[in-house]
């Protein structure tokens, strides 16, 4: 049953993956000039260029090139970096581990603040507390995370000297050093993320509070705390959960510049370095990798949804 559902969802995401793969493939061909010339560099003679062109399959027609490239991708090999001839996928996985740690920590911290704040604001809709929460959320939403990162460096790194401003230490090596290095990049992301989540939570809670079953729960004399926790929170969280792909997207976007500022060897920094170096296989691989994660997360959410919402299970 679950297997059938899973298969159906994977099939349904095939058009997305196909279009993205074509786009990502064409990305390299849209670059003015010859990709082979980028690989061999300035010193190439024409014989060398022709050899690399044949090696990269550039002498074949475009659809054939696409299929060859796709076969490489499906074989679990995202191509090789122009810069150091390293395989792209293993490098991506290694970088992604760092990014995931920052993203997960930032998400957990912001959810811990945003869920109660959003529910409370909705409960006091249009009262002073709500306006205060919404206004502060809008203010936080407006603080660019990279500026926040620099301000944190200025305060805790330069002025106070409490925290290291650059680099990353793996958890296995030293948990305290890991925390010290990861705390500022995470904090820089948390503010914006809390704001986004609070606004989402508030909107979906307002929606739920307008339902008849809430009026019913109140009219049968249930205390507000039970109404909010048992009847409202559960129903308000599920729509926010479907936004997880969007939230992940905003976190990933944030890490691009945050990792550059804090010198974290993560996915975002990898992409930026690849763009500086015009390392197109890495750019292609990173984009494809991110889309695969996005699609996978949305499938997982669809699988989780019936567990959280019995109404979907029956349908």
């Amino acid at each position, binding site marked *: 049953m679950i297997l059938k559902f899973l298969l159906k969802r994977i099939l349904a995401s095939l*058009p*997305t*993956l196909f279009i993205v793969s074509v786009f990502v493939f064409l990305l390299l061909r849209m670059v003015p000039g010859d990709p082979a010339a980028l690989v061999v560099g300035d010193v190439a003679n024409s014989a060398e260029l022709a050899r690399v062109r044949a090696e990269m399959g550039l002498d074949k027609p475009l659809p054939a090139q696409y299929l060859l490239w796709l076969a490489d991708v499906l074989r679990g090999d995202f191509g090789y970096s122009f810069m150091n001839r390293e395989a792209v996928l293993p490098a991506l996985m290694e970088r992604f581990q760092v990014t995931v740690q920052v993203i997960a920590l930032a998400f957990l911290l912001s959810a811990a603040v945003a869920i109660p704040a959003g529910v409370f604001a909705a409960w006091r809709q249009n009262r002073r507390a709500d306006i205060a929460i919404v206004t502060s959320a809008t203010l936080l939403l407006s603080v660019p995370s*990279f500026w926040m990162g620099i301000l944190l460096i*200025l305060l805790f790194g330069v002025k106070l000297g409490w925290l290291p401003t650059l680099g990353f230490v793996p958890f296995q090596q030293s948990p305290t050093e890991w925390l010290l290095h990861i705390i500022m990049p995470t904090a820089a992301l948390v503010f914006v993320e809390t704001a986004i989540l609070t606004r989402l939570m508030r909107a979906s809670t307002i929606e739920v509070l307008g339902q008849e079953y809430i009026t019913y729960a109140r009219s049968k004399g249930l205390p507000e705390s039970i109404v909010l926790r048992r009847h409202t929170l559960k129903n308000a969280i599920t729509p926010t959960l479907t936004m997880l792909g969007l939230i992940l997207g905003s976190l990933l976007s944030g890490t691009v510049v945050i990792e550059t500022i804090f010198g974290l060897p993560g996915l975002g920094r990898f992409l930026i370095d690849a763009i500086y170096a015009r390392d197109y296989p890495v750019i292609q691989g990173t984009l494809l990798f991110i889309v695969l994660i996005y699609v996978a997360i949305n499938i997982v959410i669809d699988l989780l949804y019936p567990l959280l919402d019995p109404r979907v299970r029956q349908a």
Partner: protein
Amino acid sequence: MRFLPAPFRRPVYLLSFFGIAALLLAAVLGAFYTPYDPLSLSVDARLQGPSWDHWLGTDHFGRDLLSRLLVGAAVSFRVSLATVTVALVLGVTLGTAAGYFRGLADRIVSSIIDAFLAMPGILLALALIAVIGPGELGVIAALGIAYTPNVARVVRGNVLSLRETNFVETAQIFGHPHWYILWRHIVPHVGGPLTVLASAYFAQALLSESVLSFLGLGVPPPHPSWGGILAEGRRFIADAPWLTIYPGLLIMISLFCINLLGDALRDYLDPRFEPAS
């Protein structure tokens, strides 16, 4: 204040209007006049703190920060406006075509929209810039294309429900050509929800432009942009913190005012809105 519709009367919203007006004024001013030449170097005036001569201080080349921020404001607002225009024109065209004609056109456009929505906007823009190349036009094209799928999706949804309305069906029975129905009856009704979306993407574009310029992929130095000034100032953060504080503060104030304006517009267009007691 009485003449304003209820949702706009909140003090924070009023504040945001004045904020946006002031920023726009500064941007226009920056295009024509600055206290100093934003590009001229001065060895004697390097890394000076805020003073009467240089209200916001100078950078490591002795360039006046206020002048550079004024010109940067013009760049930021120009790029954001152009980006939103590109996204709106492309998005409305694609979304209306998909929603109105349905069938094969809809299926093709919708799957393309879904596919591009799987890539976060700024990452898509980065990939496009890697191909188009940095610079002001590159940023506008990349961000404009990156935001198009979102606009197209919203427009498509609206048009799908609009084409079932009586006035559109009547127009079809009258035998009006498609382009006439689209132009007269569909596009004007899409406008309302689009203003909210446009303000949100204006803020997004402003932020993304500063991120791209900060990364050295947007407006190229020595031409001033808020993100670029931040990136250069970061190197002197210990000695000249004003170089990082002021540009960031300007980005934040701009985003805050635009976001508040978006909220006010949303409340205004929301038929369920009740004014705060």
